[in-house]
């Protein structure tokens, strides 16, 4: 497991977005990720799995965390030298996605989509996922993907 890392101190070395806990805000996340890929010259198809993982964690926070209550979700992305890191923070009730058991697969189309599919996809698409509660009581999920080729924003 990759060590939990801190976001770079310099503001220009990471990208961040704050959205409200509302599914309609997911389009803003989609645009944010697309802009990140363009700005850092990342192949969106190669990074797509990682972006799916970010979407799943954020969607989980909206749907299962806040459950319709108002709140914010903060997403940060940065390169740590070996890979791309995403940090998702929210102030919903504590929930550790790393503890979600894998769904029963393959999915039977005759039944409803089983719970845990989103987190299962996260596990498939990232190299490391970790969870902690921050000192101020927020949920914090870190996702790491190695091996993505990019032009770092700070070097551009």
């Amino acid at each position, binding site marked *: 497991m990759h060590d939990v890392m801190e976001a770079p101190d310099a503001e220009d070395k990471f990208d961040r977005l704050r959205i409200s806990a509302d*599914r309609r805000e*997911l*389009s803003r*996340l*989609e645009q944010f990720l*697309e802009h990140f890929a363009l700005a850092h010259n990342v192949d*969106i*198809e*190669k990074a*797509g*799995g990682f*972006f*799916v993982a970010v*979407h*799943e964690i954020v*969607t989980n926070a909206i749907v299962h965390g806040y459950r319709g209550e108002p709140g914010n979700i903060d997403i940060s992305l940065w390169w740590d030298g070996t890979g791309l890191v995403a940090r998702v923070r929210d102030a919903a009730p504590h929930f550790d996605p790393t503890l979600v058991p894998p769904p029963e*697969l*393959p*999915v*039977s*189309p*005759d039944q*409803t*989509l089983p719970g845990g*599919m*989103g987190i*299962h*996809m996260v596990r*498939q*698409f990232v190299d490391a996922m970790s969870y902690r509660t921050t000192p101020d009581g927020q949920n914090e999920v870190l996702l790491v993907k190695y091996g993505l080729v990019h032009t770092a924003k700070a070097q551009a």
Partner: protein
Amino acid sequence: MKINVVHEEGHVPVTVLQVTGPITSNEELEAQAQAEYTAGARNILVDLADVPYMASAGLRALHFIFNLLKEGDSGSTLTKGIAAGTYHSAHLKLLRPKGPTLEAIKVAGYDMFLEIYQDRNKAIESFT
């Protein structure tokens, strides 16, 4: 995400849903499929060639469309058929998923009951 609808005539009428952009919500695709079904569509080909990635919401939408279109396929017969690799939906098929989109489909095992085509014409002709 944008959805373009094209109506084709193969052996039977086929509605092609051409999706462009990431699929990160299920509502729009489900609503479009429901509207087409209500208008008479019974065979749907979802063109995923321009979908760079698909979240679990996309799987949920495909699940919805499958159930919308299935006719009499249910219960243990369907489950056994999928497990044996002998069952594929006759009414919902996929065209050209790639990269993370294809990976998501395989992760969930959807490729076990949804046929995947690379050629549009062959896909349309496969509906009977």
